[in-house]
């Protein structure tokens, strides 16, 4: 079912061993396969359309190199365009007076709490930062305890849990503790929420207003389907994100949501979660993600 693009195009172009420039007809035929491959990889439909139009403009008339087949030539153009659209990996921004607030947001179960601990560990070991983590999740059972346990595992401080406080109060207390106790970074983990839940989206916007985060990372699952459009649009419009952290990249999903969310928000993909363990965090490399989306 999920045949990579190489296989799909190979079959077509094997029958068509012409040389010279890529004609409109060649390109249109190839792009039909590209469209299907991207949709099977869960790239969102509007993004697929935009992508196909762009590639078409670029590909028609391109000389086919002697050393490759027309199929390979098209794949190269598709791949390069995809890499370009995915954008470069960008580091976490810590350019502000400490304590620097980093806000983690996303749907339920996307990996926010785990990713909070992963980033904190990385900032601690790689950047020698003094990090405080706070859970603003007063909804999911044992959510605050989860972050506390992770903090103990990686040797990063967590804000003491005070039962009954609301998220904004906890966030303010975290920033205050960060200032008083000389922390460089304060990581704010939030409860999972649906992007169409007005009330909870307003709640996280209030946390943003109370803390002015330097980074607001949308934590999203690499397995996300077409819903990536709604999620990315709403979180960007209602909370304002500065980057994307893609989780479960260690799975076998093709990860087209990465392209969708990047394209829809214009915000960079900053980090990849590649496992359940707290050190399973990697920088983003567009060429790897592009190859994976295309099934190569």
């Amino acid at each position, binding site marked *: *079912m*999920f045949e990579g693009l190489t296989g799909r195009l190979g079959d077509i172009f094997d029958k068509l061993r012409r040389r010279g420039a890529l004609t409109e007809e060649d390109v249109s035929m190839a792009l039909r396969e590209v*469209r*299907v491959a991207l*949709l*099977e*990889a*869960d790239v*969102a*439909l509007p993004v697929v359309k935009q992508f196909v139009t762009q590639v078409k403009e670029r590909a028609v008339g391109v000389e086919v190199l002697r050393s490759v087949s027309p199929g390979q030539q098209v794949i190269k153009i598709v791949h390069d365009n995809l890499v370009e659209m995915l954008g470069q990996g960008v580091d976490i921004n810590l350019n502000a007076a400490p304590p620097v607030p980093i806000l983690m947001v996303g*749907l*339920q*179960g*996307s*990996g926010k709490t785990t990713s909070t601990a992963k980033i904190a560990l990385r900032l601690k070991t790689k950047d020698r930062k003094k990090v405080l983590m706070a859970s603003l999740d007063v*909804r*999911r*059972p*044992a*959510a605050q*305890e*989860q*972050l*506390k*346990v*992770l903090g103990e*595992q990686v040797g990063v401080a967590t804000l003491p849990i005070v039962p009954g406080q609301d998220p904004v109060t906890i966030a303010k207390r975290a920033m205050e503790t960060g200032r008083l106790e000389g922390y460089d970074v304060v990581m704010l983990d939030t409860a999972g929420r*649906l*992007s*169409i839940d007005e009330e909870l989206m307003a709640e996280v916007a209030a946390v943003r207003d109370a803390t002015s985060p330097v980074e607001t990372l949308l934590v999203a*699952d690499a*397995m*996300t*389907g*077409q*819903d990536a*459009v*709604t*999620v990315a649009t709403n979180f960007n419009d209602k909370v304002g994100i500065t980057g994307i952290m893609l989780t*479960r990249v*260690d*799975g*076998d*999903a*093709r990860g*087209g*949501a990465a392209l969708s969310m990047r394209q829809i928000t214009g915000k960079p993909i900053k980090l990849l979660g590649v496992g*359940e363990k707290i050190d399973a965090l990697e920088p983003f490399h567009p060429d790897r993600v592009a190859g994976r989306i295309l099934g190569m």
Partner: protein
Amino acid sequence: FTKRKLDDAALEELEELLITADLGPTTAAKVTAELARTRFGKEVTAEEVKGFLAAEIAKTISPIAQPLVIDPARKPHVILLVGVNGTGKTTTIGKLARQFRAEGKSVMLAAGDTFRAAAVSQLKIWGERTGCEVIARDTGADAAGLAFDAVERARAQGVDVLLIDTAGRLQNKAGLMDELRKIVRVIKKVDESAPHTTLLTLDATTGQNAHSQVEIFRDMVNVNGLILTKLDGSARGGVLVALAEKFKLPVHAIGVGEGVYDLRPFDADAFAKSLMGLNAD
């Protein structure tokens, strides 16, 4: 509604609607082709044509809409929850426990996720909420050993239903899938016929990777039922249409929220209508 000719442009719009609901390009094309075969060129309203498609899709999925039936002869009827990380296993256990308790059954929970931080506490809270005993060990303990104990305890107490939680795992991780198989093997040492139900939770937000999830979990641990979670969100879970045809696994319920009451029977008609963006009545 104004009538419009069902031409290529109209068909393309419908196909795109299906794609954005996660049916996948192949299934979306197939469903639209079927529509074209019977209705092409006819004057139809948008509502009519969506209703027609919803009915077609409902036909495909209605065979898999089956409630979860507890076998009263089994004491306990063992239900094992499996699935990818964060899809809703633990929450679904809480919801199912409430439902079974409301039906007057005795229910025991087993905290088989001995890996994730605070997974045991999370299940214990669900145990308190639903008034069920929770069998647990410390984080880091052997999950298979815990499951063994739980089945023995449930059997000794003559409990009606035992719900066993497991750690989330990605289906492509051979080592973790082996551990899950080990849990099943060890359960069988107490009761050869158990687990009687192995439920896979699928997150409605998931796109085409759901194919791989269902296929591998089914092959590895004989999954014999699905629960589609997070349908209260903007995702519509259309990948289920292709899954229904390919794997024919029953969908026992859907998750529509984070609360203990947020579990609903899977209604094929309502689901199909929501895929087409029609309001269910």
